[in-house]
């Protein structure tokens, strides 16, 4: 449970911080939260698709990561995303790997 807002499964990752004075976040209201969550899923899925994984939101507060073989993992905080993805894929997600960089460059072009 989040100690700030009292919501079960509250995610206070730095990219998704709970709104408080002086802190940059897009968690202003339900609409901005939904928009940013959608953007975050798109961004993560762009990278995850490199190893054929997919991230979805479950009931608005948990994340479900799934593989093409049907394996899945459920977690509540974004800080768990990449360790879970590496476990599910059985391989690293290395942003300095030449192949992943080239693949991301191809996605851009």
């Amino acid at each position: 449970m989040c100690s700030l807002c009292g919501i079960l499964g509250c995610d206070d990752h730095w990219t998704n911080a709970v709104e408080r004075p002086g802190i940059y976040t897009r968690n202003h209201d339900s609409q901005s939260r939904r928009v940013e969550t959608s953007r975050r899923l798109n961004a993560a899925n762009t990278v995850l698709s490199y190893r054929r994984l997919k991230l979805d939101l479950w009931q608005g507060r948990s994340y479900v990561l799934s593989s093409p073989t049907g394996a899945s993992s459920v977690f509540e905080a974004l800080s768990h995303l990449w360790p879970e993805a590496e476990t599910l894929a059985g391989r690293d997600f290395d942003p300095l790997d030449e192949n992943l960089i080239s693949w991301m460059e191809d996605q851009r072009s």
Partner: protein
Amino acid sequence: MTPVILLTGFLGSGKTTLLQRLLTDPSMQGAAVLINEFGDVGLDHHLLDRIDDNVVLLKSGCICCTVRGEVADALSNLDSLRTRGEISFDRVVIETTGLADPYPVLQTLTAHPVLRSHFTNGGVLTTVDAVNAGGQVEHRAEAARQIAAADRIVLTKTDLVAADDVARLKQRLSKINPGASIYTTLDSVESLVAGFGPGDHIVPAARATQPEDHVCDAHCDHAHHHVSHHHDDQLGIISFSLIIDAEIDWTMFGTWLTLLLNRYGDRIFRVKGILAIAGEDRPVAIHGVQHLVHAPTHMEHWPEGPRQSRLVFILEDLSPDLIKRSFAAFTGLAQVRTAA
């Protein structure tokens, strides 16, 4: 939120002596102190003049691997005592063991479900022994991590070393951590603590590393990712900055940095910077230590100078050029998607 100042530094570098001096300053009179020692019998708390309920000695053990829960318990206990009105304090100083990596304590403050709503990172103050620093930094990874994590560095025992050697040491420390301001024990306590906090010198740090490897001309209108870096030949530690003229997509940047720190957080001692986020008038400051990134700060206004993003990294055995290319690949993708 109560700020927690982390006082760290290698064994024998003068942490307790500095703490004694700090506690004499009026601004520090409301400080509670946690002391961690490595050894069966703790002595440091006896060396402090002011022994009262606000000084807590943590049990023996290295703070970086065994007492993270104990730090949390001690802070929770202090907060409970304050809530009951039994003690009062307006900040906490944690003196770590000389062998401690500062990161786990900072992580405890950020991640602990209760502490994070009562305490905040008040900055890392690192003592460096001017007599022995050279060997310690070369041979002890802990010493290098403590310097890299510092917001302010205090050089101790400078009276035992020639002025030229002190100047050379300052130069070397600036290469390892260009963002930290460097003081000596000859500086006043007031100056050591004035305005102290995490990301103390984010902007000057970013400015200190201006682009050196790129010359723009009239035809040069692309988004720049300048890289400049300083290298400590004896350490394999590099500090470098990325400077980005284009506005950054916050979501993709967050994805990239989280991914980078997940894989290389143990080699990225420090990352901090000021960002021009697409759609935001004011800059956003970020700072992180190893795997940990603190909640980003929304700054009130842009500092003087060009309105561009600047990210400073202090890392070991990673290629700045590869990080630059990775950054461009990930955030470039985000720009295309935003335009679409």
